[in-house]
């Protein structure tokens, strides 16, 4: 660590390199910390989490009871022990609360004045954060599994919605109606994701085992379908030709630079794809246990040198190296199945929520103070507050 600091100081190294090395070290030391807690509000499992991108301060969570909660993640108290409090809630008593389970929530990408939630009551609501009333409500024919708004969009304000219907719907925030339908899938759409690199590229995953990548400006069909065998038709059985997974494809995540796409499926496999060509990079993660009947929400780290994938696997969260495919560690702490996880980029923290109604915060372990310094401090007497040895000097005296 000191060598990195010196290299940064003297100009030998790029400034980014120190940041990346320290971020990676912090992610590798993620642990449950008894000083950090998130207030427990949900009465039923937590389905989705989202941290806003502007400040990284507020977190949204949506639960199986239809309740939506906003938490303040920042620690303004001077104490080490901190419990993330709720700022406001759309509870069961609210007139506008969702009737059934909330499946996906997402902050408006440009500010926290608005957020969008979609639920099994076949509606998607656009909420005003100040008044907690829906400004807009979109009705659909089937259960809404997921929705996503593009984080980089400047020219459009489309929300892609995946429902029980095989047609992907694009709803426009400006006009308030569903203006576009993407046809091509033959099963329920379990996950949709916009690319963080290009504002017109959308990926969708469906129960027909296919993952399609679309350019929404194009009128005819999808750009390409992800094929796990890379076009080698001889490897698959005839029904499984041109599929991304051998079971339902239920999770999608772009890497932070948008160059790669990760997909998970109920065949217990996770695959990494080149998002420009649709080629399977054949990184073998092994068995990634996946029994989810709905979409699986997983996340990728940002700002680290070997990037990490955090996938909920049963009752724990598995951490894999993105390009190496090796299992780094399993984060165990939940009492029941984990449904969603979200990575906080600035502090390298992971928040995960599951059926046990808990949101757990995985915090990088701080370096413990040396034991020798602690002894010295206690010898000098209890009246003097412990001074960091770096700030001590040899000439000031305690008596005067």
């Amino acid at each position, binding site marked *: *660590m000191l060598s990195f600091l010196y290299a940064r100081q003297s100009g030998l190294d790029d400034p980014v390199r120190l940041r990346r*090395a320290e971020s*990676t*070290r912090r992610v*590798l*030391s993620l*642990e*449950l910390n008894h000083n950090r807690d998130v207030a427990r509000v949900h009465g039923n499992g937590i389905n989705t989490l989202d941290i806003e991108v502007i400040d990284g301060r507020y977190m949204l969570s949506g639960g199986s009871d239809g309740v939506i909660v906003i938490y303040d993640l920042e620690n303004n108290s001077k104490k080490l022990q901190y419990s993330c409090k709720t700022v406001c809630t759309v509870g069961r008593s609210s007139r506008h609360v969702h009737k059934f389970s909330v499946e996906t929530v997402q902050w408006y990408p440009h500010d926290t004045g608005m957020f969008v939630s979609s639920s099994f009551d076949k509606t998607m609501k656009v909420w005003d954060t100040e008044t907690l009333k829906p400004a807009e409500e979109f009705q659909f024919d089937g259960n809404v599994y997921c929705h996503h708004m593009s984080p980089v969009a400047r020219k459009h304000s489309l929300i892609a919605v995946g429902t029980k219907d095989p047609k992907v719907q694009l709803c426009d925030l400006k006009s308030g109606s569903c203006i576009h339908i993407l046809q091509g899938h033959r099963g329920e759409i379990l996950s949709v994701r916009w690319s963080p690199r290009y504002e017109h590229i959308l990926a969708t995953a469906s129960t027909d085992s296919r993952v399609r990548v679309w350019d929404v400006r194009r009128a005819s069909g999808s750009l390409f379908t992800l094929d796990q065998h890379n076009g*080698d*038709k*001889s*490897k*698959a*059985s*005839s029904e*499984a030709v041109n599929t991304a997974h*051998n079971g339902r494809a239920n999770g999608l995540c772009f890497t932070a630079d948008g160059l790669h796409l990760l997909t998970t499926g109920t*065949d217990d496999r996770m695959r990494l794809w080149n998002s420009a060509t649709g080629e399977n990079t*054949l*990184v*073998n*993660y*092994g*068995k990634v*246990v996946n*029994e989810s009947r709905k979409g699986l929400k997983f996340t990728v780290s940002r700002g680290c*040198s*070997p990037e990490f994938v955090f996938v909920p696997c*049963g009752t724990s969260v598995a951490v894999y190296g993105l390009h*190496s*495919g*090796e299992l*780094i*560690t399993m984060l*165990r*702490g939940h009492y029941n199945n984990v449904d969603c996880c979200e990575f906080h980029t600035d502090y390298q923290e992971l928040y995960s929520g599951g059926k046990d109604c808990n949101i757990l915060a995985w915090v990088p*372990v701080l370096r413990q103070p040396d034991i020798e310094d602690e002894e010295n401090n206690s010898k000098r007497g209890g009246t003097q507050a412990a001074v960091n040895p770096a700030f001590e000097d040899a000439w000031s005296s305690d008596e005067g």
Partner: protein
Amino acid sequence: MSRKRALIADTFCLMKRRRSAADAVTGDSHEGAADIRSSLQNLMTLFSRKLFNDSLPPVVLKHQLYSLHSDKTSVDKQLNELRASGELLMFQLGFDSEAFALVFAEDYRAKVLQGEAGRETLETVEKFLDKLIPGCSDLSFNKEKMLKEFLFTDSEITQLVKSGVLTVRDAGSWWLSIPNSGKFIKYFIKGRKAVLGMVKKSKYGEILKTELEGRRTTSHVKFQMKYHIHDIVGAELVECIQTTSGTLLRYVDGNIN
């Protein structure tokens, strides 16, 4: 959860991590430079030839290699290189879409010709093997390929299916297969189920690997115990946990078997 040694990123690693004592005891190798060919040969020695009256070449499953080498992606890459060079053949066995069988090309050729000796299909099979072994690394063939590229006639294709080198996949396409492998698959599945049952029935559903190797096998288990252990560890049907007394195999719930 406390770890005795914290995970360290490669950039901070100045000295190699010392291997745990258990590894040194059991002799498992986790070297950086994976030599797939020697691992394959080691695994092939575990295959019981006598069981099939020497009619089958030694068969190893792809996921058995995953139990010997920790980096699955590099194992896959090296296997693809071996297949491209024509040394190794890969087959899709019917029972699992992820289970692939690996056979050395010379062994395969020798056994197939040995099985075909004296039959009228010998010439066709020889012709097919000549086309297959140096160049082609496909797992299945469709009619167009057989007729146009390989220049086989319909009757010759029928002969190949009869000899067991091709198995029907669907109308107009065939899997490459090992002749007389039906018995192998039957014994393999039965043995796998029996070994998994042994792990499951142990106290707490877990058993030390060395203890499992020493157990008496029932009549259902026809292969060597080590062969099956590599299989269930590589296919992640059991969880492999390092303890101070060696490797522990714990049954994973949620298995269909």
